[in-house]
């Protein structure tokens, strides 16, 4: 089932994986929201590289545009609007015992997930060998996602637009503030 991977591929896969992990760790340990946001952007970028290596080029591009671009810029805008760039205000996180408890919860969850990951995968659902490459040849990179999106998942796609509309309306209403909302 597993095709053979070249050393070049494996090396870069591990490289980007380690970069993602290291910048995620740096991200959670930062106190300043701006530094945290920039480290998170770094994580998103290396995850985009991993997506490209896993034959999901379109998702990789979306990751850079939507996550590293749009969403993180919105976060930084809010930090700027509320003038929260100074880390000293919220310098101390929660107490020592709380941190310890959080670490234990994290370890417990991690071991649970690792156990779940050892479950045998359903083999009858696996697509035949070469199917993905064949689809890629036939429909090219965007088409492989667009075809199921607009055929099998059309209803979900349309409902997503309703979700976005509601989110826009909600953000505008919440952002307008009290003075406008009271009337």
């Amino acid at each position, binding site marked *: 089932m597993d095709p053979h991977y070249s050393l070049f591929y494996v090396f870069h896969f591990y490289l980007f994986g380690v970069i993602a992990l290291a910048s995620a760790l740096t991200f959670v340990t930062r106190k300043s929201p701006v530094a945290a946001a920039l480290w998170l952007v770094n*994580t998103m970028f290396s995850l985009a590289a991993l997506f490209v290596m896993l034959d999901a080029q379109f998702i990789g591009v979306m990751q850079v545009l939507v*996550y590293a671009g749009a969403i993180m810029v919105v976060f930084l805008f809010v930090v700027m609007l509320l003038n929260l760039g100074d880390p000293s205000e919220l310098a101390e996180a929660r107490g020592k015992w709380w941190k310890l408890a959080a670490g234990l919860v994290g370890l417990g*969850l991690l071991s649970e997930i690792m156990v779940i990951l050892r479950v045998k995968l359903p083999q009858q659902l696996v*697509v035949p060998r070469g199917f993905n490459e064949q689809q890629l040849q036939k429909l090219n990179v965007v088409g492989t996602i667009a075809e*199921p999106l607009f055929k099998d998942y059309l209803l979900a796609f349309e409902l997503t637009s309703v979700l976005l509309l509601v989110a826009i309306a909600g953000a505008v209403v919440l*952002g307008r503030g009290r003075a406008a909302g009271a009337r």
Partner: protein
Amino acid sequence: MLAESLALTAALFIIGVVGVLVHRNAIIIFMCVELMLTAVNLTFVAFSRYYGAAGQVFVVFVMTVSAAEAAVGLAIIIGIFRHRQTVDLKDINLLRG
């Protein structure tokens, strides 16, 4: 590369969970939630190699939902900041009984 991707997903997800539990700054907590969502996306992409492109379609949906969530959540944070002049979750306890 499936096993490595899943292990990386688990590690990133747990980093996000621990970040949510440890931090007090509402904006950083939101970023941790985004990290968890992205980690799950990696699972979808890794499985889509074996189970067809539907996994990548789900990633598109997850991205849309997280974008909507970020917009509304940040608007809520701005609203809270207007009332209380802080985003420290220790001071935001209106619903505590």
